[in-house]
């Protein structure tokens, strides 16, 4: 990625900005594996919207291996293209594969947001032992802009762009809106959120995977 100032934010970067509690400089509370799954979904969405991947109701397939010029997306596309004769797989297959790299992909995207001058990284020690990392926002223009756009999608009846539809689906999949809307606002907007979220099959797959992760965590906690 050559000139970041001229490159629009990816779905992954915008998702991370939405998932960041700007008052605390930390992510809202998500299970790590749910966040990894959402990050994997965001990468698949970014490649899809750039016409490198496509999908039907059953499978996701590679339609072009031409690099997009993005140092996060291109290595993923390269890996996907190595799959045996580019056999189509269900979206859930790729989600699982990429979720294993979710933390690394997330880290790369956060570094890029730092390079863009949108946030900075602060590492602190608590009681001189435990590490704590915060990402205070330096310039909140981008965060405000993406929040306003997504709120516009879920609080009005406007037809969303494919980019915003995907971002909404991702936000819904990992329960993001309960953090950025009041419970009353959420209750009022829920039918609309569900409608928009359903429009994207990658978002549907992320939602299903996150539900399974949360159920597994709940079951494991119940056994303690």
């Amino acid at each position, binding site marked *: 990625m050559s000139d970041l100032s001229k490159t629009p934010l990816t779905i992954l970067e915008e998702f991370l900005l939405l998932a960041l509690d700007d008052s605390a400089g930390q992510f809202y509370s998500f299970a790590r594996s749910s966040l990894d799954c959402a990050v994997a979904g965001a990468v698949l969405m970014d490649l899809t919207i750039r016409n490198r991947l496509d999908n039907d109701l059953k499978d996701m397939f590679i339609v*072009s291996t031409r690099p997009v010029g993005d140092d996060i997306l291109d290595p993923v596309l390269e890996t996907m293209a190595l799959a045996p004769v580019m056999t189509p797989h269900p979206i859930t297959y790729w989600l699982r594969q990429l979720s294993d790299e979710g933390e690394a992909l997330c880290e790369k995207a956060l570094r890029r947001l730092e390079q863009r001058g949108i946030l900075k990284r602060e590492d602190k020690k608590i009681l001189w032992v435990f590490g704590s990392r915060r990402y205070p926002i330096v310039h909140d223009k981008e965060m405000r802009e993406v929040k306003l756009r997504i709120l516009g999608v879920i609080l009005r009846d406007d*037809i*969303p762009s494919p980019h915003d539809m995907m971002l909404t689906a991702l936000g819904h999949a990992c329960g993001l809106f309960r953090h950025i809307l009041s419970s009353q606002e959420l209750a009022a907007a829920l039918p609309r959120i569900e409608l928009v979220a359903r*429009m994207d*099959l990658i978002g549907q797959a992320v939602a299903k995977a996150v539900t399974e992760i949360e159920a597994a965590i709940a079951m494991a906690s119940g056994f303690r």
Partner: protein
Amino acid sequence: MQTTATESWNLKEPEIMEMASRLDCDAAIDFEQDARIFIQRGAKELVLNCAGLTVMTGAGLRAMLTMAKEMKQVEGKLVVCNLQGQPQEMFEACGFNEIIPAYSNKDKAFARMAA
């Protein structure tokens, strides 16, 4: 594989666009370009006749969404008709019928638009 292209479309009267057999990643680009011609000509109501459409992918759905949004921005309306088989399954599984009105045939689409 890519049979949907500008030359394969039969662009009839200003408001109807005959869709060819596939609306996938490649065809979606041509579809958007051609649908924009209608918008530039001032069309306010556009019916996508999907009678010949047999395969639609996620890219095709997003292209329809993009054009529905662009039509709405000029206070116009985009509807589809004659969806069947796999394209209809995709359309309904993603709830697109809640955003883009779908009619079982051309006459019903025209009648609803005229109402």
